[in-house]
């Protein structure tokens, strides 16, 4: 039992990409059945479908996301200091629950938007993930991270929040019900 618990906690510790919820970011059903989503395959994980749907199969599939929605960066659990509340050092990996995962000594940051087709993820070189985690200016515009580096300040542009982290701007956004950070040009 102890070993089970240990295994479980180890899994949960290492697999920070999991969400247990009735809703989650999920890819559209590319095969055209049902109204439900497959679980988004963040970090190589994919979840069970959580709805049957199927009233008007295909009717709401316009603009569906197909193929791999790749995570560009991320995978580390950077503590986030939101500048208006320096006491709140929450661990993004704990709360968002949808970040990269540690496997076999490497951080993987693959993110399959479609739970199935893309859900097996792919390893992103540590240099990329580490670069973003360190707030490197080399972070590519359009890269997607699932946690922020340390030392970010928030800015509002057009009524929406952004972060500036060592010269790199991140746009937090919901992708489905999952929170992600997209590297953008200076929104101001």
């Amino acid at each position, binding site marked *: 039992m102890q070993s089970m618990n240990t295994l479980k906690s180890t899994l*949960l510790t290492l697999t920070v990409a*999991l*969400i*247990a*919820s*009735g*809703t989650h970011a*999920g*890819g559209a059903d590319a*095969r055209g*059945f*049902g109204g439900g*989503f*497959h679980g988004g395959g963040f970090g190589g*994980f*994919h*979840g*069970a*479908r*959580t*709805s*049957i*749907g*199927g009233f008007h199969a295909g009717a709401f599939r*316009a*603009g569906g996301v197909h*193929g*791999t*929605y*790749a995570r560009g960066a991320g995978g580390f659990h950077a503590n986030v200091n939101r500048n*208006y*509340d320096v006491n709140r050092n*929450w661990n*993004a990996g704990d709360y968002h*629950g*949808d970040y990269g995962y540690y496997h076999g000594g490497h951080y993987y940051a693959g993110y399959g*938007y479609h739970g*199935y*087709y*893309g*859900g*097996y*993820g792919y390893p992103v070189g540590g240099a990329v993930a580490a670069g973003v985690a360190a707030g490197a200016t080399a972070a*590519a*515009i*359009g*890269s*997607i991270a699932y946690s922020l580096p340390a030392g970010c300040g*928030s800015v509002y542009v057009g009524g*929406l*929040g952004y972060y500036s982290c060592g010269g790199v701007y991140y*746009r*937090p*956004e*919901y*992708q*489905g*019900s999952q929170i*992600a950070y997209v590297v*953008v040009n200076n929104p101001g």
Partner: protein
Amino acid sequence: MRHTASATIVLTSVLAVAATVGAQTRDDSAAVPARTKQRSTQKAEQPPAIDPRAIDALRKMSGFLRTQQNYAVDTTGKQDYVLPSGEKVQLSSHGNLIVANPNRLRASVVSDRKERQFFFDGKTFTMFSPRPNYYTSITLPTRTTNRELVEHLDANYAVELPLADVLRWSTVGASINDITRATYIGTEWINNAETDHYSFRQRGLDWQVWIERGNQPLPRRLVLTTTDDPARPEYAVDMTWHLGTRPSDAVFAFTPPNDAMKIAMASREQLASREQANKARRTSQPTKED
């Protein structure tokens, strides 16, 4: 990319096998000779793939739900996630759904790793994440119903509301067109309610529902098995129902907490372009911005 390609090949194979099996099943059933003259026009005498009692039960359930203008459901759920190794891990959550038809709802899903709250006050939909203290809001056209909200969020933002099936059943009816098998399993007690247990199959999905017996045919448990995934991950949710109470409108309105940050909600178009950009990035230099 290689992973994706091989996954697609595996999937294709699985689907091909599934299609073959399905075809055989139909052939077998058609080959069984009719036993009586009266039923000689029917294809089979063995238990039919679709038990009409199961379909009736779905219709009765959704018919009853449609008579409920106001209800709340407490949920406890378990969802499998599949590791790249093929191992399944199961995570738990709980939540609720509060509905005042035609156009008010509120829902939450809480796990140890994630919490989401959803508000729809008839005009504005808000999704709120208490721990990072983010929210996003969109304004819906006037007279948008709960049902339309479900589909709008699905179609435009890839957002699935909790118990989306209950919301669908309670506004339109049970979906039967996609069902290829329907079976009555038997009775079972679920959380002090005597229920009838049914199993259904449709493409890519086996699902079971336990419907309360008596004059309140409510779904008490729902189990979904994703069958187009070799690991066959499951999602299970138990429901506790509270009928007939309409909360005040304030319950459905969202007021941002202090310091909450309003953030964007990516449209499906944006999600697709992010995908494209990241694909391109993997093979060449970044070319696209937000």
